[in-house]
C-alpha cells in the first residue's frame, strides 16, 4: 500500500527536505502556528507531525517482529489509518509557511506538503480538480493562437467601454512589441480594469498578456508542469522584448514569479525585471507618477497580508503605504505581517469544492482577528484570499466588504 507514494516522494526528497526530516526536534513550537490544528485539534494537522507521518510511511512497514526496533520506528500496524491521516496532513494545509516562522530552525512544512501532494496524486488520493485546472494552464499555450483573436476582440470591447467611462485616450494594448511592462492578469476583467486605469494615469508603456498568472500545478506540487505553464509567459515576454513582467494580485503566482522563476528559467529570464503590481503601483505613487485623492475612503478598514505576498515574498510595506494614502482609518490586524494568520483558503483549496467545509473551519482565527479590529472593509492583494474572506464573511456573519488594493487606488486616482 502507498508504494507509489513512497517511490515518488523518495525521488522528490530534495536536500532541505532530507535535513528537515533529520533535524526536527519535535519541540512543538510550530503547533500554535497552524490554523488547521488550532481549530481541529487533529494531530495530522500539527506541522511537524506531517513530516513524522511522511517519515513513517517512507520507512515502510517493519515486519521483523523485533519489538524494540518497531517501537523505535513507531511502525504502525493499521496502514489504512496512516493513509487517512497522511491524506489530511498533505491536503489540509494552505502552504502558508506560518509554521516556518514559528520554527526555531525555519523548517518549511509547505515544502514537504508540495512533494507529498504530488506523490499522493500518483495514488489517486486528493482533489483531482486542482490538478486538472493545472493541466489546462499548461496546454493553453498550445492553443493560444486559436483563442487569441477572440481574446483581442474582447479586450477591444473592454477598452472602448473604459474610454467612455474613464478616459478617452485609455489603451489596453495586447501583444505590443517593445512595451516596457508585460502585465499578466487573472481570468476576468476585474483583474484588468483597475490596472488599466492606473497604468493610464502613470503613463506606463504596458501590454496585456494572453495568459493568466495562476498556476494550479504549483498547488499540487507538480513542479514540471508548474514550470511549463509559467514558461509560456516567459516566452511571451521575450518575444515582445519587454523589460519587466508584472503579476496581478494573486498570492501563489506572485511567489512563483519572485521565488521560482530564477531557478526555473535561469538565463532565459535574465535582464527581465519581475515585480508584483502591488510593488509597481506603490512605486508609481512614491515616484509621483500617479496622484491619489487622500482620504478618499473614510470607512474603518484593515489590511490582510496574504501569506504569499507577505512572509513568502516580503511585500509588507508597499500595500500599507498605498492604503495610508487613500484611507483615513487604517487599522492593523493583530498579529500582522509575517505573523499574520492565514485566511485558510490558500494552497489551491479554493478550487476544490470538497474542501469548502474545512476551509471555513480553518478560517476561524482569521474571522476572529477581523472582528477584533472593528473594520468594515478588509483590503487584500490575493485572489484566493478575497474569495476565502468573502466566504468567511458569509459563514461567520462578519458584515464586512472585501476590497482589492489596486481597486481602491484606481478609484482614488486624481487625474
Amino acid at each position: 500500500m502507498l508504494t507509489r507514494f513512497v517511490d515518488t516522494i523518495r525521488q522528490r526528497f530534495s536536500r532541505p527536505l532530507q535535513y528537515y526530516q533529520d533535524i526536527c526536534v519535535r519541540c512543538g513550537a510550530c503547533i500554535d502556528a497552524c490554523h488547521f490544528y488550532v481549530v481541529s485539534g487533529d494531530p495530522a494537522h500539527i506541522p511537524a507531525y506531517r513530516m513524522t507521518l511522511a517519515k513513517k510511511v517512507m520507512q515502510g512497514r517493519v515486519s521483523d517482529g523485533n519489538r524494540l526496533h518497531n517501537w523505535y520506528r513507531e511502525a504502525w500496524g493499521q496502514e489504512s489509518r496512516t493513509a487517512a491521516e497522511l491524506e489530511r496532513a498533505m491536503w489540509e494545509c494552505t502552504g502558508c509557511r506560518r509554521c516556518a516562522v514559528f520554527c526555531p530552525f525555519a523548517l518549511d512544512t509547505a515544502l514537504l506538503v508540495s512533494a507529498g501532494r504530488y506523490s499522493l496524486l500518483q495514488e489517486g488520493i486528493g482533489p483531482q480538480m486542482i490538478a486538472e485546472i493545472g493541466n489546462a494552464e499548461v496546454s493553453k499555450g498550445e492553443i493560444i493562437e486559436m483563442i487569441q483573436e477572440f481574446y483581442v476582440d474582447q479586450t477591444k470591447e473592454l477598452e472602448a467601454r473604459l474610454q467612455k467611462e474613464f478616459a478617452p485616450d485609455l489603451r489596453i494594448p495586447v501583444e505590443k512589441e517593445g512595451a516596457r511592462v508585460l502585465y499578466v492578469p487573472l481570468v476576468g476583467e476585474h483583474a484588468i480594469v483597475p490596472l488599466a486605469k492606473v497604468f493610464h494615469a502613470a503613463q506606463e508603456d504596458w501590454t496585456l498578456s494572453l495568459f493568466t498568472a495562476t498556476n494550479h500545478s504549483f498547488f499540487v506540487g507538480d513542479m514540471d508542469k508548474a514550470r511549463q505553464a509559467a514558461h509560456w509567459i516567459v516566452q511571451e515576454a521575450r518575444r515582445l522584448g519587454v523589460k519587466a513582467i508584472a503579476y496581478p494580485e494573486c498570492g501563489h503566482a506572485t511567489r512563483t514569479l519572485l521565488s521560482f522563476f530564477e531557478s526555473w528559467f535561469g538565463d532565459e529570464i535574465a535582464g527581465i525585471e519581475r515585480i508584483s503590481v502591488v510593488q509597481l503601483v506603490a512605486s508609481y505613487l512614491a515616484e509621483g507618477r500617479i496622484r491619489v485623492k487622500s482620504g478618499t475612503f473614510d470607512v474603518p478598514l484593515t489590511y490582510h497580508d496574504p501569506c504569499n505576498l507577505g512572509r513568502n515574498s516580503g511585500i509588507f510595506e508597499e500595500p500599507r503605504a498605498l492604503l495610508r494614502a487613500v484611507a483615513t482609518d487604517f487599522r492593523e490586524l493583530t498579529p500582522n505581517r509575517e505573523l499574520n494568520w492565514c485566511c485558510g483558503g490558500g494552497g489551491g483549496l479554493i478550487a476544490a469544492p470538497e474542501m469548502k467545509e474545512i476551509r471555513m473551519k480553518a478560517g476561524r482565527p482569521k474571522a476572529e482577528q477581523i472582528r477584533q479590529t472593528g473594520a468594515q472593509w478588509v483590503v487584500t492583494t490575493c485572489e484566493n484570499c478575497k474569495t476565502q474572506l468573502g466566504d468567511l464573511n458569509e459563514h461567520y456573519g462578519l458584515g464586512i466588504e472585501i476590497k482589492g488594493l489596486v481597486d481602491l487606488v484606481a478609484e482614488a486616482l486624481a487625474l
Partner: protein
Amino acid sequence: MRTVAFLFYYITPYIAVIVFLGGIGYQLSRWRQKRPVPANLSLFPRPQGRLGRLMDTLVDMFTLKGLFRVNRPLWVGGFIMHLGLLLLLLGHVRAFTDYYFLWDLLQWGEEQQHQFSAVAGSIAGLLFMFPLFYLLARRFSGAVKWLSSPEDYLVLGLLIAIAITGNHMRFVLDPDTHEIRQFLQGLFRFRWQPAPVSAGISFVYHFAFVQLLMVYFPFSKLMHTIGSVFSKMVAKS
C-alpha cells in the same frame, strides 16, 4: 572483568569518537547527495547580504530570538538548557587542555582557578539539568504528546542521565578533579593513565552515557546542531 574495564576505559572512548565524527561526516554527505531544491525558500523579512545572513543566523542560534517571540515558556526552557550545555562544554575543555591565556590575564593561581570552576560548573550543571526535566514533562502534555517519538525520550533520557551523574559527582562526591583530568588527558594524548577512582560509580555511568550519546548523536535529531545552520541560511537566502 579486567578486560571489560580495560575496553571501557581505553578502547570504546576512541570508538565513540570515531563513530561520532564519522557519523556526522556520513550524514553530511547523505545530505549533499540529495539535489538542492530548485527554488528560493526565503522567509521574510530577511537580512540583506551574505554577512547579514550569517550574522542573523548566529544571533538566532545564540539567542533563539524567534522562539522568544512566539513561545516564551519553551524559550526559557530551551535557552537555559542550551546555555548550561554551552558552559559545561567550555568547562569540560579543561579536561584536555586549559585556558592558560585567561588565567594569565586574570593572574589567577591554581586555587582560584579551582574555586572558579567549582562555582561556574555547579551553576552550569543546574542550568542544564532543571530545564531538561521541564522539557521532559512537556512531552507528556497536550499536543506535544502526539508529536513526541521514541527518539525524543531517548535523547532526553540520555541527557538527563548525563546531567544527574555529572551533578552527583559535583555536588555529592566532590572527587579529585586532578585525577580525572589526568585520565582524560592521557586518553587525549595516547599516554594512558589509571582510571579515576575518587568519583566512584558515578564517573563510570557518566562516562558511559557520554559515549553512548556520541555514538547516537549523528543518527538522531541532535544533528540539528549542524543542520539548523543550513536550514536557517536557506530561509534567509
